[in-house]
């Protein structure tokens, strides 16, 4: 429950306003793509971001001074709830949720003037250059090297698992600028235009059949020193700031509620063609419903703790852990229902003999079942989350 909220905000009126906006302004075709769980690309996200920006709602998590809405956490939660219930697309997180807030905190006024407008109106597309072949969960082991050369850094190395790099304009990138001291200390955050000479982006084929991951090769790429965010060697602090800030994103919970409704509908449709309903599936759906409600309360409780300045890292990590594993359980229910007829018919093969992605709702569920394996891997694996929680529970 959220206690620390201003008294002069009419939350019911706010919710109605957001709901009316979502119904009237989100294009029906886009809502249908979201409803059917289709994979969204840059065009989808950008179209919705332009509409939100025109309304002044481009950045629900940012302060007003930087073009954000200045909403409190309850308003953000209501906004996200309505967006999910009305099948509006989620907002593209790499700009608004990740690097944007880091720029607000660590960026120079010049950098803020230069980069924030493109994030707000959706014209600039960002991706995250963190992981490397030898540095995944152990991110501080990254080796991509940046050597200062006058007004530039010369960057060489390889990034991997880079979501959206194939459609992005910029990559916020952790690079090693020093080998001295603790390995976390020699890391710097650079903002790298992906159009620079020396950069190659290659797709990684993933089990879900969708293209979202890439390898990014950097070969003597000359990056202006003005593109460094924060001080040299401060990159780890920036990365940690980003992770800490994103831990209470309301979207991770409210989208679960809608997902469960869609999965329940899929199961009902499959059950309709069977001699008897699947009682085990019904029980799993009910348990998932209870867990989704628990996730919502966990989020609200964590927000309340945050507002009172008493939020424990264990609780926010518990939220991430609970939601990511729950998302997998929910999509797993759909997979059980659809798997018998769709596992062997994952993607149709075209006349050239190539599998192609179909966008019907059933296909999307199967793609998502596979894609959702990444929920417990990306943004800190479940095992890393458990380590974080355990440190707090055991005090060491």
């Amino acid at each position, binding site marked *: *429950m959220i206690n620390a909220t201003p008294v002069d905000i009419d939350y019911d009126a706010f919710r109605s306003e957001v709901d009316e906006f979502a119904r009237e302004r989100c294009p029906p075709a886009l809502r249908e793509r979201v409803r059917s769980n289709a994979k969204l690309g840059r065009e989808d996200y950008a179209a919705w971001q332009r509409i939100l920006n025109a309304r002044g709602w481009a950045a629900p998590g940012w302060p007003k001074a930087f073009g954000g809405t200045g909403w409190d956490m309850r308003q953000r939660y209501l906004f996200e709830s309505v967006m999910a*219930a009305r099948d509006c697309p989620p907002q593209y997180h790499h700009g608004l949720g990740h690097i944007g807030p880091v720029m607000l905190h660590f960026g120079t006024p010049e950098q803020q003037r230069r980069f924030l407008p493109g994030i707000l109106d959706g014209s600039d597309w960002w991706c995250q250059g963190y992981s490397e072949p030898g540095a995944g969960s152990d991110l501080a082991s990254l080796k991509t090297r940046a050597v200062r050369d006058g007004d530039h850094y010369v960057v060489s190395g390889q990034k991997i698992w880079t979501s959206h790099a194939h459609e992005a304009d910029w990559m916020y990138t952790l690079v090693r600028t020093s080998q001295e001291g603790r390995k976390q200390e020699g890391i710097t955050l650079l903002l790298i235009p992906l159009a620079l000479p020396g950069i190659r982006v290659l797709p990684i084929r993933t089990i879900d059949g969708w293209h979202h991951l890439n390898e990014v090769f950097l070969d003597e790429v000359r990056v202006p020193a003005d593109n460094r965010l924060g001080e040299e060697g401060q990159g780890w602090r920036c990365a940690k700031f980003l992770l800490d800030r994103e831990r209470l994103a309301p979207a991770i919970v409210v989208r679960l509620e809608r997902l469960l409704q869609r999965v329940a509908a899929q199961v009902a449709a499959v059950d309709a063609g069977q001699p008897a309903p699947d009682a085990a599936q019904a*029980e799993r759906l009910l348990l998932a419903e*209870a867990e989704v*409600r628990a996730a919502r*309360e966990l989020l609200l409780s964590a927000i309340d703790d945050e507002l009172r300045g008493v939020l424990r890292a264990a609780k926010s990590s518990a939220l991430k852990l*609970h939601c990511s594993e729950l998302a997998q359980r929910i999509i797993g229910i759909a997979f059980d229902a659809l798997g018998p007829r769709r596992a062997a018919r994952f993607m149709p093969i075209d006349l050239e003999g190539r599998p192609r992605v179909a966008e019907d709702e059933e296909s999307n569920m199967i793609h998502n079942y596979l894609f959702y394996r990444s929920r417990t891997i990306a943004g800190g694996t479940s095992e890393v989350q458990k380590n974080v*929680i*355990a440190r707090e*529970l055991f005090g060491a």
Partner: protein
Amino acid sequence: MHFSADTMFPGDLYDAASRFASAAAAKLDRAAERQDGWRQAVAMGWPALLVDEARGGAGGTLADLGAVVEACARQGLALPLVRRCALAPAMLMAAGGEAADGLLRALCAGEVDIEVAGAAPLALTPRPGGGVRLDGRLEQVDAALPFTHLLVTVAEHLLLLPRAALPAPAARYAGIDGGEGADLLLAGLELPAAAVLQTGAKARAAAVAGADLATLVTAIEIAATLGATLEHCIEHLSTRIQFGAALSSFQVLRHRVVDSYVQYESASVLLARLVLDTASHGRLASRDAALCKLYLNDLARRGAESAIQLHGAMGMTAELPAARLARRLLCAEFEQGDRRQQLARLQALAPADELTA
């Protein structure tokens, strides 16, 4: 300092109940001390906690009862709080009528002590003048603690059976958690019209209101027990040395504890919310109660098994505090509706209009 689980219903009442429970729990191995604990609970007015002030009760909220149940559960104190402080008053308040009202007043004055029997497959024969005759086996009555009356619902009749009219137990048994139950063989037990508190729709309504509340309070007891179990596991793993290191240094054990922690956090905030909503809406939805219990039943089993495993061989010893809590969890799972019963209730009830409702 070791981990301490957040309480669901913090406040003065929780603190007072905690002090009482920690003092009483140390003695609970013997029936006499359990009886003493219950006498003190009655003296503190807990059976009257939910009854409105007009009828002599404390006019407390569900959160107040939650605080008492949570504090006692965390100490592993096995008192019949669900049946005697939630189920009995809730049934009587929902039943209405002069007889139920009078009984509530007597309950609040400490003149009666009301136990509640589970659903009984008894044969009921109406008698001339409004009385009834009962035949059959009344199962799982907690006869180890004193009571003056037994509430039972039979064939849409809410009945009040005086203790003095009941036969000696036909069979007695100990539960997994050390609780004691008895089966009573009723052979032509004649009850006067005054023993029939309500019939028909009102008796049904009383049964449903009582069941919903008792279901939720049992879920609260499970969550609180899970929190205490978690604390014991963390304490044990932090202090027990094996292979030259504290067990808490082994990742597989740490991660298993984290699973329990996440389950406790999730369940406790869900229950706290439901209690708050019940107070603000003035009613508890049957579906919400059943859904919570279904969820907590699942967690109870997992929590109990995990606690035993994490304590190794010590987890198999009956009097280890964590093992006692685990045994309590294994019983609570089946009280006020097991998995199958909650599923049946949920399937019979209309689905929620929307998940966010």
